[in-house]
């Protein structure tokens, strides 16, 4: 167990490390996420600042993961803050490409509603039991998830439905 790991989760046996700024980073497995988040909340990490995701498709080296963590294509990153301890902790959860879903943090931190919808919209990672798992930024009939690495930049032509065929 890394010494930087916040107390309260030391007994959960989650892989831990630090980032270049020295902030603690935990690597729970998807099934452990809720348990770890709840333990952290009870240990003083009372606010969930952010949920976002990263698509590591094509990234050849993942040097910053501890040995026991199996890298997957997607990673969901949850940032929690403790005002009392004045530090942030980051949870990095590996999400497999074949079954991109996680349990929602909404019941622990209702403020994850919008960020989780954004992750779903942009990466197609679903959150089980989220109250409104719909697209948030893209139009609801949009196909594809724009922030995936296999989604190209700027190839969709703008169409004006009302305008007829120019010829």
């Amino acid at each position, binding site marked *: 167990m890394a010494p930087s790991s916040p107390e309260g989760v030391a007994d959960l046996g989650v892989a831990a490390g630090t980032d270049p700024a020295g902030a603690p980073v935990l690597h729970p497995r998807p099934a452990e996420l809720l348990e770890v988040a709840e333990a952290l909340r009870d240990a003083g990490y009372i606010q969930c*600042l952010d949920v976002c995701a990263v698509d590591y498709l094509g990234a050849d080296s993942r040097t910053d993961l501890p040995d026991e963590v199996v890298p997957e294509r997607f990673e969901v990153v949850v940032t929690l803050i403790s005002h009392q301890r004045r530090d942030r902790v980051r949870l990095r959860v590996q999400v497999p490409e074949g079954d991109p879903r996680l349990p929602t943090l909404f019941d622990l931190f209702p403020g994850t509603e919008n960020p989780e919808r954004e992750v779903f919209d942009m990466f197609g990672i679903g959150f089980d039991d989220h109250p409104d798992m719909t697209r948030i*930024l893209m139009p609801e009939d949009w196909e594809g998830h724009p922030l995936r690495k296999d989604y190209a930049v700027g190839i969709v032509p703008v169409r004006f439905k009302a305008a007829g065929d120019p010829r």
Partner: protein
Amino acid sequence: MSAEAPPVQGRVYARAGGPVLRLSESEAQTAAPSAPERMIINMGPQHPSTHGVLRLLLELDGETVTRCKPIIGYLHTGMEKTGETLTYLQGPTNVTRMDYASPLFTELAFSVATETLLGLELPPRATWIRMLMCELNRIGSHLLFQATNGMDLGAVSMMLYGWREREEVLRLLEQITGLRMNHNYIRPGGVAADLPDGWRDDTLSLLDPIGDRLDEYDALLTGQPIWRERLQGVGVISAEECLALGVTGPILRSTGYSWDLRRHMPYLDYDQLEFDVICGSYGDSFDRYAIRLNEIRESIRLVRQILEGMPAGDYRVQDKKVTPPPRGRIDESMEALIHHFKIFTEGFKVPAGEVYAAVESPRGELGCYMVSDGGPKPLRMHIRAPSFVNLQALPYLLEGRLVADAVAIISSVDPIMGEVDR
């Protein structure tokens, strides 16, 4: 400064059945309202007081709002995707367009994240110039809030005054950075240029009148019975709800919860400056108005201290890896020309890793989560936009209020849609 941890009981605030009813978009489209006499109406996206293109689904019982759902995405332009195609030096031109009322804060978060990955140590003058610019920008942003908040409540003269003073601030920013908005001034490695001649006098001649005019705003609005009637007790939120919802900034502070990153988790050199963290006590729209008004005063105080303490030295780090050679060298040295060319075309490589850097923007905690794979462009660049998260408080603020108050409440959240939709 107490940062006591109040117990958060997530489930109490969660979904229908809790103290606040929430409405999902699909519910509003398919199911009937929860009672026959209720109706669902759309407010926006094109509405004069929605601060951009924000659409609200409101479920009304007569004149009373029972449930609400903000619908966003109308300004979505995929800036995080674009960020993956730009080098670290081009990145600030992109992120500065997110929160267009306080662009320097997004540039700052982006630059700090990049510098943390690079392991750069900034010269003191660069840090102080950044603080100066951010506080000036905070003044401008809060003046904009005073203007739009006044307009939303029918105080049209306040709109004109706020806009007038903000223009003065923008004029100074233009003088220093070259642009009124979207400055691209704070960059990885420091700032784009040193402060111009006469910046000290220009800053002072800006601060003095603004301080006086804040007193005029007080006389015009703060004690005015109509203003108080429209704001006090309207849109009340508790500290527990704010914490549960991830809400930061003036909205969290309006509940009396003292939390300001500049004070409690200092970045740049804020720990060397004296200022007060302004807190409210009731968590209502009036507190949010008063906090922003007084934060302008605190920023003026900060700028005066920065004027006193501005160190001499370099305005950017002298690291050949990230800093282009001086202009004079390019004319005489082929190597300098190549070096310059490489930095601006290929960009510099940033060591692999991931980092989260946060600053206190006028709207709350603005974070940048940056992942580098060792190349010249970020693998992932995510901005934790305070407005995006703070908007989740709207259903809580609006619940049980009159439709007429909706505009006042939206205004008191002060969302910037460019940052919400990114």
